[in-house]
């Protein structure tokens, strides 16, 4: 299915939704008492663009046969996926309060069979692209038109399995597979380039016969344009290297790897929400 044109009004709506999603992430993580803040905030724009503009899906019918598949490989940023799924109607927003708690459908890392709408189970890194390949190959065998999107992190690229998968997708010219890398430069132990350098990342993908697009991952318009381009590339799989700011929207979390794997306390949450509400006002007035 073609991606609709992104008019000014829709763009503003998506930006406001991303802001709302960030607020919900802060509230959800505060309530959960553990979880990953930085990546969840950094990827809010991309998740909102996917669920509210790009994906062919139906929250009321998660099993829709021809739905586009979205796979989150770096499962630890599931708070943002859960949040945007709830906002788009997969389950009540109130259920976000159960994240990481006993008997919740919202497991600490995504579990496919716990929550309708999740395509895979993830958390242990490096396994999402491979699963996306199996799904994309199935589409090819069954002559289905759905598109498979995989979201992966940069740190995850230190796993060998990732490169096994990249090699395979290049060989099979999987043009119905699009990979989105959250290039936020941080991982648990520090900056990726200090822990284990990934650069030159673009050249690596080119060498493995992928189409490479590089964008500002916090710019919804750039992301939608990139996905449109990726879907019209027929000779190879496309990777969108999305440069994002970890912790985006909350000044004291931005670009600080200390926020990779922890939630805010109540004081920090209050401060974060104040900042996000200020930003919300700014988005509203900017587009007027």
């Amino acid at each position, binding site marked *: 299915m073609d991606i609709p044109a992104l008019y000014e009004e829709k763009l503003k709506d998506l930006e406001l939704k991303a802001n709302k999603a960030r607020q919900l992430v802060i509230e959800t993580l505060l309530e959960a008492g553990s979880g990953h803040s930085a990546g969840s905030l950094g990827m809010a724009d991309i998740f909102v663009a996917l669920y509210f503009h790009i994906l062919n899906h139906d929250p009321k019918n998660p099993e829709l046969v021809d739905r586009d598949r979205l796979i989150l490989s770096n499962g630890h940023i599931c708070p943002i996926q859960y949040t945007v799924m709830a906002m788009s109607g997969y389950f009540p927003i109130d259920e976000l309060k159960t994240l990481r708690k006993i008997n919740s459908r919202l497991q600490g890392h995504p*579990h496919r069979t716990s929550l309708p709408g999740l395509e895979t*189970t993830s958390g242990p890194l490096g396994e999402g692209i491979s699963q996306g390949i199996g799904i994309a190959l199935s589409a090819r065998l069954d002559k289905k038109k759905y598109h498979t999107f995989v979201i992966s992190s940069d740190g995850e690229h230190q796993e060998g399995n990732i490169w*096994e998968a990249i090699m395979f997708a290049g060989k099979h010219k999987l043009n119905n597979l699009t990979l989105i890398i959250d290039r936020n430069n941080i991982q648990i132990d520090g900056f990726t380039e200090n822990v284990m350098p990934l650069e030159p990342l673009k050249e690596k993908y080119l060498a493995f016969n992928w189409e490479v697009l590089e964008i500002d991952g916090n710019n919804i318009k750039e992301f939608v344009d990139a996905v449109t381009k990726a879907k019209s590339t027929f000779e190879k799989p496309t990777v969108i290297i999305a440069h994002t700011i970890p912790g985006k929207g909350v000044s004291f979390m931005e670009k600080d790897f200390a926020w990779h794997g922890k939630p805010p306390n109540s004081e920090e949450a209050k401060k974060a929400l104040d900042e996000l509400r200020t930003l919300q006002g700014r988005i509203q007035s900017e587009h007027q």
Partner: protein
Amino acid sequence: MLNPKLFLNQKMFDHNALQKATRDGFGDALVELGTMNKDVVVLTADLSESTRTEGFEKKFKERFFEVGVAEQNMAAIAAGFAISGKIPFISSYAVFSPGKNWETIRTTIIYNEANVKIAGHHAGIITGADGSTHQATEDIAITRVFPGITIFVPCDYWEAKKATIESANIKGPVYLRFTRDKTPIITTEKTPFDKDTPQAYWLSENPKVTLFAFGYMLYYALLAAKILEQKGINVLVVNLSTIKPANEKEIVELAKKANRVVTVEDHQVMGGLGSMIAEVLAKFFPTPMEFIGLQDTFAQSGNPKDLIKQYKMDEVAIIEAVEKVISR
């Protein structure tokens, strides 16, 4: 005597008895499955000849996927296929799959409830000359702990073929264990494959010991039973080709017939068939037991027969274990 109701190969003890590898049963079954079910897809990790997937590859090229030497990728791609409605079989040496890719299997296949069939080849010290690096002797231990998995260890070519075909009918992950060498044909095409109920292959009146065996080791257990009969010692020999789910009730019933048990497996004695039987009996019917298998050590390169003898897994060792457990 051999159980007359099971259509067993009456010539199995003959000098020139027919031998065939279980991996060939797997390969032949895949070709049949390819015709029977268009959702069956097969993946291999640079081992299509030796894991016998090449027959399927030739006939169903578009459903065959060579992933190269990348067992993690193979497992997770298979998970993707399965959650899209396919029935993928992944095939490699058991040391690599489910060995090297164990966590990938745990997350993307088992916990993910993906309908993937995992074929582990070159299992046991019978793999021989390649040495311990290629002899999977822990694969049952590491798969038996997976919730919801079914595990088959076929005793011969025919059972390997039937178990492979049966695995495609099971909704959920299955682990199938195969060996490299030709081993004696124990069953016939007519022998029923009852995945739910373990069958006694050797029957006798007032048995003193129940032997539980799996894989080709069932042959050594039957050979021991035959020799023991001549010595006046009656035993039962059970083919325990379904390791999981365990039929606890039937295992207890079979153990009760003799009140003494010997387990026989080409696998580490920790975590395999012996452990499984011990867990069941400790719970419902504590029974003296002896364990034939690899005794917490690695084996080495060599001729399979020599290895099986040296590591005390042949009929001589089984007879000693039977006599020992009777004397306890």
